C-alpha cells in the first residue's frame, strides 16, 4: 500500500542510460543488423483494395538466377480461426495469418500477397515484377457507414455479427455489436432541461513512428532460430511467429532491437513470420525492411470512427443522461478498439443514466493496430465536444461543469467496477489554477479544454537483478524501452536496494535470458515491470541480509538494511553491499534476485488539457499558440520522462486534430502515403507544451505509480477542436481540422 514518503532516488531527473548510444548513433535499431550470407526479402503487395486472387504464377520469378526463395500463404501450416493472445489483445490466428500474407482475397491496397528472397535487394525487387497474379477486382468498402449498410459488399463470407439478440442468418461487415448501460437512459433525458446531440467523424490515422518495421532472421532446422526486430514486445513476436510456423517457443529466440517509436503500432507481426519462412526455404539469413510507403499502406493504423453523442443536463449543470453510438473501423479483419472506446467514452463523469452501443466493422483498409490509448481518443473526442457545447448552452465554465459532474473515488463506472482514488478533480483544479487558464485570451484567439481517461494495465513482467562482486548490479528486464523506462527501472531498483543509480545497469534481454514479459504497451511498463524490479530488489536485499547474518553469526531478523548497508542490530557492525558481494563466494555464491509477477491493480489515469489557437480566417490554417497538459501520474518516478510522455501524447493528439488523415481515392488507394503529404506536427509547428504533474498515489503500487504513456493523447482532439470552434464560431465535428475543412466551415457560416 502506498503512502506519502520521502524518496532518495525516485523523483530524480537522472540521465537516461541509453541516451549516449542514441545521440551518437551507436544504438542498433531494427535495420542495423546484418549477418554473414544474408539475403534480402521483399513483399509483393496488392494493387487493389478488394480483389479475389484467382491464381498466382511465380515460375518466372523462381527462375531468376538470384532468387533463393518464394513464399506464399500456402507455405505455412494450416491454421484455424480461434482466439490467440500474442500481444495487444485477443487476435484470431487465421486473421493474423491472412494479414501477414493474403490467402484467397486481397483485402486492402498494399495487402501482402507473397514474398521473395534474393541475393540483393534489387534482384528481389526485380523478381517481384516477374510474378503473374490473376485478380478479380471487387468493389472496395472504404467507410464504416457504408460498410454497415445491409446492401454493402461483404468482405468475409464467414463473418457473422456477434452480440445480437438473434443469431444472424447472413454474413455482415459488422463483426461485433456491444452495449453498455447504467440506470434509465430515457428517464435521464426526460429529466434534462438542455440536451445537446452531435455527430462526429475521426479519420484513419497512423502512429507516425519514425523507424519503419525491420527484421533480420536466421532459421535453423536443427537448433535455435533467431529473429532480430524492432518491436514493443519480443515475447509476443516469438509467440506469433512460432505459432504461424508451428515451432516450439524454445526453438525461437527473439531479440528486440532499440526501437524508434511504436505507440502501439509495433505490437503485432508483419515481416517476421515472412522473413523466417524465407530463411527456412532458402537456408540463408534474411533481412526485410519496410519503406515508409509500405508502413502507411500495410501496417496497422488507428481506427476511423463515426459517432453520435447525446448528453442531457439540468440548468444547474447536473448531467442527467449520456448516450453514445460509436462505430469503429477495424480494417480488413475484425478487432477494432471499439470495446475500450465504449468503456472510456463517459468515464470522466459520475452520471446515473448512461447508454452506449458500439460497432466493430471491417472495411478495405489495413487491419488497425493499437494506437496509444486505443479507441479512447476517438470516443472521448465526441463526448468532450458535447460537454463543451453543453457548458456554452448552460453558460457554465467548462471546468466548473466538469467539476460538478466529475468521476471520483466511489464512482460506479459503466464498464463495471467502482473507481478507487483517482485524480480527475485534482487535475481540473490544477487546470483552473494554472497560469494558462488565468491568462485572458487575446481577441483573435480561441481556447479549448478537454478531459481524458485511460485505464492503464498491469500484466506479466519478469526481472532479474544480478549483483556483481564489486557491488554493482545489472537489472535484466524483458520490456523494450520506448519511453525511457530503463531509467525508471534504475531509479526504483536504487530506491529499494539503497545503491546509487550509477551502479545499476538496466538492460533489455532477449527471450532466452529473462522469463516472459508482456508487451510494452498499455502504459504498463513503469507500473508492472517496475513492480517486478521492486520484487527482485527486495529478493536481493533479503539475500544480502542472510549473507551478512552468516558473517556475523546472528539471525537474519537481527540484520537491518538501510542505504545499501547491512546493519547488525546486536553490535552495530556494518557491511556494505559491495563488501557482501565481494565476499559472496564464501557465503554461498553470487547474489541474484528475481521478480516474476502478474501485476494487478493498475491505477487509471485522468488528464485535462488546455489549448489556445489562432486561426488564419483567410486560409483556415490553425496555429496552436499555447498548450498545457495536466495529468495524474500517481507518483512520477522520473519526472522528465513523465513530462515527455505528456508532451508526446499532446503533440500526437494535436496532429490528429489538425492535419493527420489517410486520404483514399475512389478505388481505395491511399494517396498520401508519406510524411510530406501525411502531415505529422514538426517541432516548429508547436509551442512548448507546458506540463503539470498531479500526484494522487495508486494504492496498489509500492510507490504509488500510475501509467502515464497513453492518457495524454486522449484530450487533445477535443481541446484543439473546441479552441478552433471558439475562434471561428463554428462547431468543428469532423477531424482533422485541416485548413481546407476549417476554411469551408468559415465560408459556410458566413
Amino acid at each position, binding site marked *: 500500500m502506498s503512502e506519502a514518503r520521502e524518496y532518495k532516488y525516485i523523483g530524480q531527473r537522472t540521465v537516461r542510460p541509453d541516451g549516449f548510444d542514441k545521440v551518437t548513433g551507436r544504438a542498433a535499431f531494427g535495420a542495423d543488423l546484418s549477418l554473414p550470407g544474408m539475403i534480402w526479402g521483399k513483399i509483393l503487395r496488392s494493387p487493389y483494395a478488394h480483389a479475389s486472387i484467382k491464381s498466382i504464377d511465380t515460375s518466372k520469378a523462381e527462375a531468376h538466377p538470384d532468387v533463393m526463395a518464394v513464399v506464399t500463404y500456402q507455405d505455412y501450416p494450416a491454421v484455424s480461426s480461434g482466439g490467440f493472445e500474442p500481444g495487444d*489483445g485477443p487476435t484470431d490466428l487465421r486473421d493474423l495469418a491472412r494479414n501477414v500474407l493474403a490467402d484467397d482475397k486481397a483485402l486492402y491496397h498494399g495487402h501482402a500477397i507473397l514474398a521473395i528472397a534474393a541475393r540483393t535487394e534489387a534482384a528481389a525487387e526485380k523478381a517481384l515484377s516477374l510474378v503473374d497474379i490473376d485478380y478479380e477486382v471487387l468493389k472496395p468498402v472504404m467507410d464504416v457507414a457504408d460498410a454497415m449498410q445491409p446492401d454493402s459488399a461483404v468482405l468475409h463470407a464467414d463473418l457473422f455479427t456477434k452480440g445480437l439478440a438473434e443469431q444472424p442468418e447472413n454474413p455482415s461487415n459488422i463483426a461485433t455489436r456491444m452495449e453498455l448501460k447504467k440506470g434509465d437512459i430515457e428517464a435521464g433525458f426526460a429529466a434534462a432541461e438542455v440536451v445537446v446531440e452531435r455527430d462526429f467523424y475521426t479519420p484513419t490515422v497512423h502512429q507516425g513512428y519514425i523507424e519503419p518495421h525491420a527484421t533480420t532472421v536466421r532459421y535453423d532446422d536443427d537448433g535455435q532460430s533467431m529473429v532480430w526486430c524492432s518491436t514493443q514486445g519480443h515475447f509476443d513476436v516469438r509467440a506469433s511467429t512460432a505459432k504461424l510456423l508451428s515451432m516450439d517457443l524454445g526453438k525461437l529466440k527473439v531479440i528486440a532491437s532499440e526501437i524508434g517509436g511504436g505507440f502501439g503500432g509495433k*505490437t503485432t507481426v508483419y515481416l517476421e513470420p515472412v522473413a523466417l519462412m524465407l530463411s527456412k526455404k532458402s537456408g540463408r539469413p534474411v533481412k526485410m525492411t519496410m519503406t515508409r510507403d509500405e508502413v502507411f499502406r500495410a501496417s496497422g493504423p488507428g481506427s476511423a470512427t463515426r459517432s453520435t453523442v447525446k448528453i442531457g443536463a439540468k440548468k444547474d449543470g447536473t448531467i442527467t443522461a449520456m448516450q453514445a453510438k460509436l462505430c469503429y473501423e477495424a480494417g480488413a479483419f475484425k478487432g477494432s478498439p471499439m470495446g*475500450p472506446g465504449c468503456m472510456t467514452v463517459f468515464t470522466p463523469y459520475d452520471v446515473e443514466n448512461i447508454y452506449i452501443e458500439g460497432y466493430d466493422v471491417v472495411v478495405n483498409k489495413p487491419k488497425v493496430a493499437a494506437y496509444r490509448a*486505443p479507441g479512447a481518443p476517438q470516443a472521448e473526442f465526441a463526448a468532450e465536444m458535447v460537454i463543451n457545447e453543453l457548458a456554452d448552452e448552460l453558460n457554465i465554465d467548462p471546468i466548473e461543469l466538469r467539476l460538478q459532474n466529475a468521476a471520483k473515488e466511489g464512482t460506479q463506472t459503466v*464498464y463495471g467496477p467502482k473507481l*478507487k482514488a483517482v485524480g480527475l478533480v485534482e487535475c481540473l483544479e490544477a487546470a483552473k489554477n494554472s497560469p494558462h487558464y488565468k491568462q485572458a485570451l487575446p481577441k483573435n484567439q480561441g481556447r479549448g479544454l478537454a478531459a481524458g481517461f485511460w485505464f492503464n494495465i498491469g500484466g506479466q513482467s519478469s526481472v532479474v537483478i544480478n549483483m556483481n562482486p564489486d557491488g554493482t548490479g545489472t537489472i535484466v528486464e524483458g520490456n523494450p524501452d520506448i519511453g525511457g523506462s530503463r531509467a525508471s527501472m534504475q531509479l526504483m531498483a536504487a530506491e529499494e536496494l539503497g545503491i546509487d543509480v550509477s551502479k545499476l545497469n538496466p538492460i533489455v534481454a532477449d527471450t532466452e535470458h529473462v522469463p516472459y514479459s508482456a508487451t510494452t504497451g498499455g502504459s504498463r511498463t513503469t507500473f508492472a515491470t517496475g513492480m517486478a524490479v521492486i520484487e527482485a530488489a527486495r529478493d536481493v536485499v533479503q539475500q544480502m541480509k542472510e549473507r551478512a547474518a552468516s558473517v556475523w553469526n546472528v539471525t537474519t531478523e537481527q540484520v537491518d538494511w538501510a542505504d545499501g548497508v547491512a546493519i547488525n542490530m546486536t553490535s552495530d557492525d556494518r557491511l556494505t553491499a559491495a563488501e557482501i558481494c565481494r565476499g559472496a563466494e564464501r557465503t554461498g555464491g553470487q547474489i541474484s534476485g528475481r521478480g516474476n509477477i502478474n501485476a494487478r491493480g493498475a491505477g487509471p489515469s485522468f488528464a485535462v488539457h488546455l489549448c489556445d489557437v489562432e486561426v488564419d480566417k483567410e486560409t483556415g490554417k490553425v496555429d496552436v499558440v499555447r498548450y498545457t497538459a495536466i495529468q495524474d501520474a500517481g507518483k512520477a518516478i522520473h519526472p522528465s520522462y513523465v513530462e515527455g510522455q505528456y508532451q508526446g501524447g499532446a503533440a500526437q493528439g494535436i496532429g490528429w486534430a489538425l492535419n493527420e488523415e489517410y486520404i483514399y481515392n475512389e478505388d481505395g488507394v491511399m494517396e498520401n502515403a508519406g510524411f510530406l503529404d501525411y502531415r505529422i506536427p514538426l517541432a516548429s509547428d508547436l509551442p512548448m507544451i507546458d506540463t503539470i504533474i498531479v500526484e494522487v498515489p495508486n494504492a496498489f503500487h509500492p510507490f504509488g505509480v500510475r501509467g502515464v504513456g497513453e492518457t495524454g493523447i486522449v484530450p487533445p482532439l477535443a481541446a484543439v477542436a473546441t479552441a478552433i470552434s471558439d475562434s471561428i464560431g463554428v462547431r468543428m465535428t469532423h477531424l482533422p481540422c485541416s485548413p481546407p475543412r476549417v476554411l469551408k466551415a468559415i465560408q459556410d457560416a458566413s
Partner: protein
Amino acid sequence: MATVIFSSELQRLTGEEHASVIATNYRDLVAELLIRYEKLTEDEILTMAVAIDGEIIHDPLLETVSPNSEVHFLFRISGG
C-alpha cells in the same frame, strides 16, 4: 455472499442484473455461475477480465472473494 453484477452483455446470458454467490475464490465463483446459468459458457466467462472490489485482474484463478465482495466481469483491456 459476494455480489456479482452482470454487464448488459452478460445479462443477455444470465437474464439477471446481479447474483449473490457463496464462494471464497474466483474459480469457485465461476463454477457456481456456470451451473446457475445455462447460456453462460466457460469460453465466454474465462476470456473476460474480472474486477473484484475494484481491482481489475486479467488472468484470475484463485483470487480471494469475500462475503462482501463486489464482482464485475469486463472485457480485457490492452493498450498501445
